[in-house]
């Protein structure tokens, strides 16, 4: 049963883990919420992430992607939140009293006029066009996520012998998946000197199946006309430049790309939302609200996460705040634009959220990543000249995002900037 008898004041774009958590949180706060999903089935990317390891923080259980998604779908169903599937967002317009969303589905083009919008459209994979691969353009060059969709959802195995470029988590997961389904993975090639994915995935996806991981290596050329016949791989120097004389031809029919993810924000960029070049997502405050009042962003559209549990957590933050905003406007942040900026200092890649609006009423969760692997790291959080918090970590790694809760009473009045940095 879907409720259709209420006025929609909050619209969630995307029904993945961020969007569903946001919709559930908003509905629990009393918002008239509806979810827009362009695919046939709700759930987002988790539908194809059949491996386990999800939900350890949200549910204290090790779940697979479909199971994690199912838990949230049941909450959505129990709250009778309408999910419009096979529905595309064509345009967002900012109006005086909210937004006008132009949508399209089987019933035609129509619009919704919510007060608040939660944008949870996730991220996209970088393709071969974004990693400057030389050579021809044969069939058999495929991103890891597309391959995952073909194997896990459609049931095709479009690969015989493959090379995987990039050691991101999806690439590692697909190395195991391909092996289990009978394809041969010749090796995983990573341009950096350390893996991009989680240690657990290197151990259980590569080492278990004796798949070699070639660090400081990349693919320099693609060969083949109709179908891929092979790739040239080479060792790289510290500036990622291929070293001549180290090239090697590897005969394969498939090149799997796992070379990174980028938040998908094209449609809200058109609204002039302020972006953070470090995350490729928008700049947000502690409520996950962007520089445009009433527009909230969460999940991988905000910044690429490695744990789905954090994706859902950011959705809950956005959902609660959007419901509050839709009902009462901006009373939570009646700040006259006063805010504290959070900035990454020594050794830190980024900090999200990037702004803490005044008044700071509640403890706030911040996520950050280190620039490189640091053992026995000590994080300092400085408000102006004053260090307000120190935290020790046995190790910080760029692929493993960290989470830190800061209490507002720690921040001295008049603070303009809070910096996260590593002690040298």
């Amino acid at each position, binding site marked *: 049963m879907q409720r259709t008898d209420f006025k929609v004041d909050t619209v969630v774009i995307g029904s993945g883990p961020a969007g569903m958590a946001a919709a559930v949180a908003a509905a629990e706060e009393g918002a008239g919420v509806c979810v827009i999903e362009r695919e046939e089935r709700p759930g987002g990317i988790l539908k194809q992430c*059949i491996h386990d390891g999800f939900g350890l923080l949200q549910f204290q259980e090790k779940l*697979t992607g479909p199971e994690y998604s199912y838990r949230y779908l049941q909450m959505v169903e129990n709250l009778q939140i309408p999910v419009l599937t096979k529905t595309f967002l064509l345009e967002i317009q900012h109006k005086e009293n909210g937004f006008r969303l132009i949508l399209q589905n089987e019933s035609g083009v129509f619009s919704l006029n919510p007060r608040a919008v939660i944008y949870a459209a996730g991220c996209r994979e970088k393709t071969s066009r974004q990693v400057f691969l030389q050579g021809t353009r044969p069939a058999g060059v495929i991103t890891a996520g597309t391959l995952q969709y073909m194997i896990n959802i459609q049931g095709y195995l479009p690969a015989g012998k493959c090379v995987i470029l990039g050691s991101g988590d999806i690439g590692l997961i697909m190395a195991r998946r391909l092996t289990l*389904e009978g394809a041969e993975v010749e090796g995983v090639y990573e341009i950096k000197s350390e893996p991009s994915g989680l*240690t*657990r995935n290197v151990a259980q996806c590569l080492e278990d199946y004796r798949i070699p991981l070639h660090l400081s290596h990349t693919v320099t050329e693609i060969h083949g006309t109709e179908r891929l016949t092979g790739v040239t791989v080479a060792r790289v120097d510290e500036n990622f430049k291929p070293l001549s004389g180290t090239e090697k031809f590897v005969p394969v029919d498939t090149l799997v790309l796992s070379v990174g993810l980028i938040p998908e924000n094209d449609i809200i960029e058109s609204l002039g939302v302020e972006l953070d070049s470090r995350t490729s997502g928008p700049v947000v405050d502690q409520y996950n609200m962007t520089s445009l009042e009433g527009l909230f962003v969460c999940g991988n559209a905000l910044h690429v996460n490695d744990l789905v549990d954090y994706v859902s957590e950011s959705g809950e933050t956005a959902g609660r705040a959007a419901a509050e905003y839709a009902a009462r406007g901006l009373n939570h942040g009646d700040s006259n634009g006063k805010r504290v900026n959070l900035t990454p200092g020594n050794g830190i890649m980024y900090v999200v959220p990037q702004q803490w609006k005044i008044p700071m009423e509640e403890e706030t969760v911040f996520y950050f990543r280190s620039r490189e692997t640091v053992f026995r790291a000590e994080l300092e959080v400085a408000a102006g000249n004053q260090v307000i918090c120190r935290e020790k970590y046995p*190790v910080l790694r760029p692929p493993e995002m960290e989470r830190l809760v800061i209490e507002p009473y720690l921040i001295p009045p008049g603070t303009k900037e809070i910096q996260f940095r590593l002690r040298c």
Partner: protein
Amino acid sequence: MQENRASFTCIVCPLGCSLVVFEDPGGEDNLLVEGNRCRRGEEYAVEEYRNPCRSLTTTVATVFKDCPRLPVRTRGEILLKDIFRAMQQINSLKVEQHMKPGEVVIQDLVGTGVPVIATGSTRPVLEGCSNVRAGFKY
């Protein structure tokens, strides 16, 4: 790699120590672990050497046109060495009845006693509702 030694990356904590396990040349079934920074790493290494177990997640074919693959997992772990045999059994199967997460697909996977359960649903969880548009007040 010699038969009486093996190396693993420890996954007990984020440190990811490189562990090496040796069989004690003095015999007596003793194992020596190097590279660990804590006791848990040593226990992990011994378990990984003697008895490595994994849960298996994969998909199984179905007869349903709009859901050709059903995601499944083992309920519990099986020995790592049994994984390919397990895949063979799972891939020889075709699901003909509608399934929900948690329902048993295989009672006993290749004689391990471990069942295989569905993790997804063959039917859409929420019915698509593209046509509810008319019901909205906006």
